[in-house]
């Protein structure tokens, strides 16, 4: 069962990650790929706090979210003045640079990774409690983002995406909106990081590299960028797919690369045959007024 639980937990974590990433790149249109580093910040923060100060997992995870949110300012403040491709490359630099720091600090376990993170729960209940927490976090994230997107804030965001200059000239502070969205999205990734750290009890810097960006991005794009449920579908699909591929009974040395090939080919096919993704964006809630 632990095996099934660990997959459910990954599903929950990746739903949080893909949805929050979608909030940044799809909803707000900020072309960043540095999402894994905020995942890492949350994970390392809550892991370190638990190791050194015995902080309880809920406080630790929230602290991780806060750190991820604050660090997001380091990328959003200087680079929101510019956008598009430049932001994309900036975010790569930010991600790899910060990761390099993590790999060099003894505090974070350097290249060997951070081990010995205490678990809050032991015993047979651990699996399902964690699954429940992770899936609840996933559901809460989706609902939170849905609430943001369909409400007055979402209206502002879609106006901003349509025509930023006109939007600003109406008195709206687009920069603040972007910074807030970036911080909220990053903090959510931090929460995912906390759950990850406490469940797996081990972090390796390698898992937050640029390939992780590719995976998360793929979940968002395959699921449907800008839609609320798209990233959920994308996350579930992309986690289930590698498991499904194991149906093909192949010698082991072929399995891993073949799995990768099928996976990447599917992504490529998607990009060409269904670029809008599986789920179409959801319209914001209609404005209600008396004359209707």
């Amino acid at each position, binding site marked *: 069962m632990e095996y099934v639980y660990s997959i459910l937990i990954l599903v929950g974590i990746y739903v949080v990650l893909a949805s929050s990433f979608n909030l940044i790149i799809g909803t707000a249109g900020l072309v960043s*790929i540095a999402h894994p580093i905020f995942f890492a910040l949350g994970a390392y923060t809550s892991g370190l706090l638990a190791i050194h100060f015995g902080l309880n997992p809920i406080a630790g995870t929230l602290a991780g979210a806060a750190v991820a949110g604050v660090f997001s300012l380091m990328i959003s403040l200087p680079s929101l003045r510019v956008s*598009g*491709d430049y932001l*994309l490359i900036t975010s790569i630099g930010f991600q790899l640079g910060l990761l*390099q*720091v993590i790999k060099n600090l003894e505090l974070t376990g350097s290249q060997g990774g951070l081990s010995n993170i205490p678990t809050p729960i032991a015993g047979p209940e651990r699996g399902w409690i964690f699954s429940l927490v992770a899936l609840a976090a996933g559901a809460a994230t989706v609902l939170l983002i849905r609430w943001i997107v369909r409400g007055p804030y979402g209206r502002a965001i879609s106006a901003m995406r349509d025509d930023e200059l006109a939007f600003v000239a109406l008195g709206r502070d687009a920069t603040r909106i972007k910074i807030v969205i970036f911080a909220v999205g990053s903090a959510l990734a931090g929460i995912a990081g906390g759950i990850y750290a406490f469940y797996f009890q081990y972090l390796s810097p390698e898992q937050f590299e640029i390939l992780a960006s*590719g995976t998360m991005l793929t979940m968002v794009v395959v699921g449907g960028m800008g839609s609320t449920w798209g990233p959920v579908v994308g996350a579930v699909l992309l986690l289930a797919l590698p498991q499904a591929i194991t149906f093909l009974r192949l010698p082991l040395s072929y399995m891993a690369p073949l799995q*990768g090939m099928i996976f*990447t080919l599917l992504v490529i096919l998607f*990009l060409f045959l269904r670029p809008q993704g599986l789920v179409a964006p959801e319209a914001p809630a209609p404005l209600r007024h008396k004359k209707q």
Partner: protein
Amino acid sequence: MFDPAVLAQILWTGLATSSYMVLFTIAFSLVLKVMKLWNFAQAGMMAIAFYAMYAAVNRFAWPTAAAVVFGLAVTLAATLAFEIWGLRTLRARRSSSLLFFIFTLVCSEFAAYVLTLVFGTEPVTLFPEILSPVRVIGQIAVSDWDLLGVGVTLALGIALALYLRFSRDGQFVLAVSDNAELAELYGIDAKRVYLVAFSIATVFVCAGMYLYGSRTAVIPTAPLQLMLFAVIATLLGGMGSVLGGALAAVGLSLLQSYSVLFIPSQWQGLILYVFLFVTILFFPGGVRRGFKAA
């Protein structure tokens, strides 16, 4: 430690080592300049180039020259297929830069997986032996590999400059990189120019992988790391300025070589990113110079 012979030795070895980095950076920034494309598929091109040459040398036992030609041919075929069946479609759809990013990155991954399937994951060098003969000039040790690296890089760099400056196709490349739409109005076929640019990039990639692979062991996923250096050099060198990128690659390599004299060696890997950060934070306009927002 700071006597001139030491500094000169570091300078020479650093320059020689930067040769393949320069080649990769030129390939990367040329594609960026001409097509406004951050071509993360270059890692795939690099991997294909290396393994094609590796197969020719070690499996078919071909002579070196034949192996290089074979590597060029295979890489070119793969690259042109990537442009014709991949990028053209995305361009026609005016896809977002994110889609281009995913597509190019996934192509690199795909190439790495295919190569893993065929060649496995053991690190291999292009030739069995990695030691190359050395002579001492002045007080400086100069190996054959150093000379080859510097020579090939200079020759290809100069050839590219002359080509762009004097040939008709080269002029077209410059025109398209300046303003693709305007160039098309003047009757230049942008599609053809893109193919030309990719072909040039292929030559640089193959040369770079030849140099790298004859000295260092390669695994199918190694080129991704190598390419990131080219990305950073391109960014620092003023996006879209090929010469700027090449100079940045040399500068960064030398900086890494010399830095061992000044800062604890385990932080050397970080220098690259420190530079990147400083540039991003303090000169966001500076690096954008010469970059035409698409």
